[in-house]
């Protein structure tokens, strides 16, 4: 077996188990018809940088790649603000419209959160990541994650309260 084949096999063995998680992550953030394509891109990027990933840290790293791809995808998809915001940050959290299907009040509050707050809440609540994994995924410290998460929950609760009023 050549080194290349070994590398391929190892990569497949490690990363295949994350397919469902990446599928769910993408499905919550983009139109379903784009999921497979973006997932393929996620793993293509992961392949090119596989040597840099420590064992056990693959999933947060995949989320991070996916977040970048989702943000870029949304830039391409966005209307209205494309020119104004194309060169500015675009978040990769689930959209308010996804929430609005069942909970309009929550959707209004979610929309008014800052992008960073949405993202950290989504990773904690929806992807069920521990703060350490969120930190790896967002590229910030665990402390920063904790603070951002705390603020996000507080903000969301306050916004819900405002909406109720």
């Amino acid at each position: 077996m050549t080194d290349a084949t070994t590398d391929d096999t190892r990569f497949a063995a490690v990363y295949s188990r994350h397919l469902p998680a990446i599928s769910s992550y993408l499905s919550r953030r983009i139109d379903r018809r784009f999921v497979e394509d973006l997932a393929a891109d996620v793993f293509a990027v992961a392949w090119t940088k596989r040597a840099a990933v420590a064992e056990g840290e693959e999933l947060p790293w995949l989320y991070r790649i996916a977040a970048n791809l989702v943000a870029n995808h949304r830039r391409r998809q966005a209307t209205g603000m494309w020119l104004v915001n194309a060169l500015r940050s675009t978040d990769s959290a689930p959209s308010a419209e996804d929430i609005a299907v069942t909970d309009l009040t929550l959707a209004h509050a979610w929309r008014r959160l800052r992008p960073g707050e949405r993202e950290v809440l989504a990773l904690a609540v929806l992807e069920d990541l521990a703060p350490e994994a969120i930190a790896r995924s967002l590229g910030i410290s665990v402390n920063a994650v904790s603070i951002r998460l705390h603020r996000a929950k507080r903000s969301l609760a306050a916004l819900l309260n405002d909406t109720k009023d």
Partner: protein
Amino acid sequence: MNTNSDHLSTRLRDSLAAHEQGPELSPELVTGASNRRAPQMVNRQRRGYVAGGATLAVAAVTVGALIVSAPTSAGPLFTASGTGNSNLGLSRAADSAATDLMVRDQINYQYEPGSGLSAAPGKGLAYQLKLAGSAELRAQELATALGVAGEPAQAGNVDPAYPTYTVGSADGTSESVIVTWSGTGSWWYSNPGEILPTSACEALPTPITPDARIAPEAGGCTPDPSQTPSSAPDEEKAQSLAQELFAATGFDVPTEDIRITVDPGQTLAEAYLTVGGIETALSWGISWSTTGEIVWAYGHSIEVVERGNFSTVSASDAVKRLADWRWFGAGGPEFASGVARLANDVVGNSTFGNSMSDPDATEQDTAEQEAAKKESELTQPTGSPNAYPTDTPLPEENISPAPAPEESETVVVTIDRAQETLLLMWDLEGNGWLVPGYAMQHPEGWWNTVASLEEGVIALPDPDELLKIKNTRVTPQD
């Protein structure tokens, strides 16, 4: 255990239950990863590095030239895409049409003109934004202006109708300039190595910095300005430097029209294309890091062609267009918040609230950083820097119970203030236009923008046809 927090989490999970399970993906996505070309990702927040005064050596090229052409004698000027996207206008318009219908199912906004609006029709100039030159030539010109070594290379894996040329690093790991030849021929430049001084960054584990093309909100280096004195230019110097760079890339703008924002992590210069004395949605920008180096810059490659003076409807008559996304056009920075909200309404892309688009964001963010710092001091257990702080218990009343599914709701919005302006619109081929329009202020204070051209001057897409296109489009799963 925080019951309120748990309740909130549960409510969020429940709300997204329909999206919980993604499609089953083929293992070939992983096993075939080595054979798939990884997408070229560009961190648009991290671009731009200018090699000092070298930029002055380049003559202005294509932007801002005002060319007058004969007005059309028959037929519409163009067919609006109904979207703000320059690329693949037809496809995007189809998406918007479908999304618009979905949003309408929940809230039906009914717009009414108030007594403060004029009922007098008028006239207004329309302009076409035409790509000037060629992508390859433009890439070379910009590379010279920005001090990037190398020859233009065409990016693969892109629609040949919209070629993209790169000079410099192709993978985003070092400085590069990229030009995309569609829409307004937008360009951007990055030098990840100059993003921030190492000492000003939180330590990042190597595994999670696989590339430098990371959206800011998705992570990256978080600056701690207190650690390093900023060498970024002050406001006056930044204006002067920005004017030089903009001119070198073909955009001539008076110094006083360049907005400077100074915050602890960066100094940002922005200027908008002004046509007929009106700032448009088209912007150029530069950002310096605390090292004093430019970390990103962007702009466009257009000439402005006057296409005629056309009749416009009154502000009062234009109000009804607020309910029709096809009349939407992007206004200048004065109305950007309204643009953002409207865009959100149309496509469900929650970009509003983005700190970069919020003129008050810097101050607000600083205040929040202070608040967060205090909060951290209060909630962070001592002796354990990475410990997870306990949430402050939230008042029970802050959590409203999950409501029952709501019926379609009609909201009447009365518009009492409108301002004439120029709006950026896209045609179905992805070309940009500046057309007369109104910015209409909602009672809550934010703005919506709609074109004011009389019916027939431009053609509007047929929503039914767009939906057919969307529904028959071949998808990867097909």
